[in-house]
């Protein structure tokens, strides 16, 4: 008798919800977080596509100059060899500006909007 009653009480308690809670706007928060995550992924992909396109254009330009004016191309290569540090710095700066414009600023703006 006692054992059966204990089982009954136990069963009722086991079916009771635990005291863990989530905020009432949880689904909204999750959706926004996923939307931000997807946006970040899209922005980063766009940036890499743009970078690849620019590199391709540079290669095509260099190829056409190789066919049309080989001397000019050699002068450019010599210039690059003479000043590697400023050239690399310029490439790095331009790349950083592109990354900031396409990805970082949007990310910062999104975070700022959330904090607001």
């Amino acid at each position: 008798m006692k054992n059966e009653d204990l089982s009954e009480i136990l069963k009722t308690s086991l079916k009771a919800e635990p005291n863990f809670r989530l905020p009432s706007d949880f689904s909204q928060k999750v959706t926004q977080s996923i939307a931000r995550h997807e946006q970040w992924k899209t922005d980063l992909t766009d940036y890499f596509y743009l970078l690849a396109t620019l590199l391709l254009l540079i290669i095509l330009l260099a190829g056409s100059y190789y066919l049309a004016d080989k001397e000019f191309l050699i002068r450019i290569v010599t210039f690059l060899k003479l000043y590697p540090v400023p050239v690399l710095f310029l490439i790095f700066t331009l790349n950083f500006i592109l990354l900031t414009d396409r990805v970082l600023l949007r990310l910062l703006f999104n975070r700022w909007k959330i904090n607001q």
Partner: protein
Amino acid sequence: MNDTELISQILNGNMNAFAFLVNRYQKLVVHVAGRIIQRQDELEDVCQEVFLKVYQNLGNYRNECKLSTWIATIAYNAGINYLRKYKKWDEVNPDDSAALRNLTDYRVENYETTDLHRYIREQIELLPVHYRIVLTLYYLEEFSYQEIEQITGMPEGTVKSYLFRAKTLLKEKLKFVVDENSLKLVKEISNEK
């Protein structure tokens, strides 16, 4: 809206449908993850991680099992990974002796009869993690043995054994605090409800 329609809406980029899915399954995720990690302050992050994984892997979901089973599996793995990450290895491995030690530690004289259900809930939280999760999935979420096997990866026999041992432990704990009179009182209160 049934789960299949909901999934196709989400895969077509409808974020409102995803919010609907979150609302529908957030209790399940909270119960599963909460019973594993037992930390209210970390729970929201873990649940967010679960739904992020649900969103990212929804395209790979095949109707081989119910959506609730699939989501519960993700929640279970996220909870166990959380325990592993924070090196609570003893928590991941069930140990009857630890639970029995708690049994004597938590012995309370003249426990308020009306608080008996709360007392059991407290005792559930002191059980080893695999016992807690099996109890939650079976009694609270009403999954079958096969579904629990799918979710946790434990063989059906182990699931049944954990369920039996967990219930026995809880019953033993109950016997310490309950007497004939208080039992009658609790029954009366339960019937009134």
